[in-house]
């Protein structure tokens, strides 16, 4: 048990360092960054805000981690978010697109959640089917849905931004449970469940084996195609849930902008977290990766730097951390230092 733990620690070290650096920067330069207030029994503060804002990305990052470990990638998660949000809004206000302002009967929360999630899973499975059974390259297969998906979301909302009110549904994105924003609770829950599913059963090992050597895995009787398809399905589910959170939080479905570019944040988080494309994955690493990205965005925005620059900063950090993660580079740096000392 011990060496494995050590190994895991080592892999998390660099992402954790990067996260600490960002937080440390704020400790010195952003007033009140670490203060957490309790208003009406709810927690508030920059840290809570990072967690809350980062929740959608963290959710899709969880799914992306598994897909990435099988040797694939899922570019369609942003589009799936848009679709699931559009579906939820449409279910709440079915007649809005016809120009009717009245809500009609209140749609039950169960319907508003289950249908978008189900469709998201089906879309994910479709990706998986293309990749595993048809043999389409993952980038191409999911690119199809990435581009077509926003169109589908537009069709659902008829190009409108559907705004709505639905008390129980709004709770998902903006409610509090035990004083903690509900999206954070969802992230914790999903991370924990995914950890249980992958690490307390053989699923995690199978995913890593499939990613690292699909042929050998097939010979060992692992259902390679099925497993791959399911990971894409799971990624679809995660995206669906993230879409619901965003839609519920802003009380609107914006097919054009919901989840836009978030697939890139998720991929970056997974890479920063040390998951290998086709091999070992680390859920904890991915979550830390997502936190790094969110903390970075928040920091930059609170410092009054124009948000456009955020992208440049992000790119910079990703490059740095990804480089540091590379063992080869580390070895070379060490070597240089050694030579320098001589």
């Amino acid at each position, binding site marked *: *048990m011990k*060496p*494995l733990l050590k*190994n895991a620690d080592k892999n998390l070290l660099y992402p954790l360092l990067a996260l600490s650096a960002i937080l440390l920067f704020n400790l010195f330069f952003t007033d009140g960054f670490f203060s957490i207030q309790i208003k009406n029994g709810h927690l508030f503060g920059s840290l809570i805000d990072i967690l809350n804002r980062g929740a959608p990305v963290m959710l899709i990052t969880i799914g992306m981690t598994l897909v990435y470990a099988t040797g694939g990638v899922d570019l369609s998660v942003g589009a799936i978010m848009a679709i699931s949000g559009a579906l939820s809004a449409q279910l709440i206000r079915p007649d809005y697109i016809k120009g009717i302002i009245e809500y009609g009967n209140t749609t039950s929360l169960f319907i508003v959640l289950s249908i978008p999630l189900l469709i998201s899973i089906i879309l994910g499975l479709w990706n998986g089917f293309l990749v595993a059974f048809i043999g389409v390259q993952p980038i191409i297969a999911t690119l199809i849905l990435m581009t077509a998906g926003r169109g589908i979301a537009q069709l659902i909302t008829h190009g409108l931004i559907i705004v709505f009110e639905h008390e129980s549904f709004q709770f998902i994105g903006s409610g509090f449970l035990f004083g903690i924003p509900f999206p954070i609770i969802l992230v914790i829950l999903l991370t924990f469940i995914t950890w249980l599913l992958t690490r307390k*059963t*053989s*699923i995690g*090992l*199978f995913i*890593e*084996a499939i990613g*690292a*050597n699909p*042929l*050998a*895995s*097939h*010979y*060992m*009787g*692992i*259902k390679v195609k099925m497993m791959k398809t399911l990971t894409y399905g799971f990624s679809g589910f995660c995206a669906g849930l993230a879409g619901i959170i965003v839609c519920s939080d802003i009380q609107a479905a914006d097919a054009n902008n919901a989840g836009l570019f978030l697939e890139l944040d998720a991929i970056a988080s997974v890479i920063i977290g040390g998951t*290998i494309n086709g*091999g*070992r994955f680390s859920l904890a690493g991915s979550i830390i990766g997502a936190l790094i990205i969110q903390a970075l965005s928040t920091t930059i925005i609170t410092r009054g730097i124009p948000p456009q620059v955020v992208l440049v900063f992000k790119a910079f950090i990703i490059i740095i951390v990804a480089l540091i993660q590379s063992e080869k580079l580390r*070895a070379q740096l060490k*070597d240089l230092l050694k030579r320098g000392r001589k």
Partner: protein
Amino acid sequence: MPDLKADSSQLVEIRGLSKSFPGVKALDSVNFTLRRGEIHALMGENGAGKSTLIKVLTGLHKKDKGSIKVDGLDFESSSPMDASSKGISTVYQEINLVPNLSVAENIFIGRQPMKFGMVDWKLMNQKAKEALKKLDIDIDVTIQLSQYSIAIQQMIAIARSLDIKAKILILDEPTSSLDLAECEQLFSIMNKLKEEGMGIIFITHFLDQVYQNSDYITVLRNGSFVGEYPIKELPKLKLISKMLGKEITDINELNNKIHRDYYHNDKKMFVKMEGIERKGVLSRFDMDIREGEVLGLVGLLGSGRTEMAKILFGIDKHTSGYININGNLVNIKSPRDAISHSLAFCPEDRKTEGIIPDLTVRENIVLALQAKNGILHGLKRKEQEDITSKFIKLLQIKVSGLEQMAGTLSGGNQQKLILARWLAMNPKLLILDEPTRGIDIGAKSEIEKLINKMSEDNMSVLFISSELDEVIRCCSRAAILKDRKKIGELYGEKLTENTIMNYIAKDGYEL
């Protein structure tokens, strides 16, 4: 008596070289000398440090201590590319070609012929063809490398190394998947290059090939330097003793006489294949295997042995025919189905079909078992460790711990690891496709003994091997294949190397 001290003919001079990995000292103060115009065999058991020595020399690993001189000058290569640009051409044990590139691209990767600043494809393909011609190989060089068998891939790797203008040629187990004729072709080229003054480092576990070609032998044992000997001063038995570190007085101590003289037709039938055919790959054949029987599959490379195994194991489909197991008609559509009927298959190409390099030794061994048990019935950590330890001990796999990454094991130990994986399944029929490839002479005889013991415990074995002496020692009966067709069976006193060769040469006509 050649002078072992420094002289101008020395190409490589390694002194006191040490290299450690976490948990193992792979090289401990090793000396090695290569002179111009010699073939120098580097010998030692699996995990002795041979490949590591090569990798340190070419810059794939950094040395911890010691000196390396090439042509009398201190030498530290920063990468294999660097080494090859300085005249060291290498064929690594785990062939490092790119499966998705064409054969020609693989041969010229990093040094493509250019014309007007662009790759001159025509010239490149033509030169690739010429490079392979020298090895008597005539294939389409524009096709993806992965389309070819490992034997051909190995020849391609050799062709690449020969095409690089080098003064030092390193061959780490180049012949492990070659047939006799291909080996001879390689040896004649090696000897020609030697005459031209090249120094060649040759690693192999085939002792005959060592004695046929080498001038010197350097022996390593457990990372330590045992000695350097002119070939004449180290007869076979002495060499084996030096490698194993114990006195061997009779080669038959290793060549256990397992051979059973009669064919057990009193035993219960386990697998019966009737009229099996795969169109375009394998002609129609019948075959049966009884319980506890070790059935050999012999034939030249490409004769259809692996194809036969792959059909039985559900990897490839058969276009006609039936498979019966224990008297019941079965439908094996995938390896998973085969495993559910207690079959196991130890594949030929450990790199692409066997090892999962980024997982640990423990995970590699229990993985197939876990897949069989299903997602919800995984083994407890403790059980996994017990199984792993048991097989590490049984097969004497050299590891630094259960959590060592499988990809960092020595070649022969990776081979043992795959064997362990399938033995752990406790199968009723174990299909072994070249199981002793890259395995040292001591371990080979241990594995032969193990196969024998398993068969006494009623496990059946389908044994594919290019080494006829091995087949004859282990099997009670052998099916002979030629040109993708089963041409007959031999058993009892008819099962000898000569009869098999004759049988193949004469297409199965009675002897």
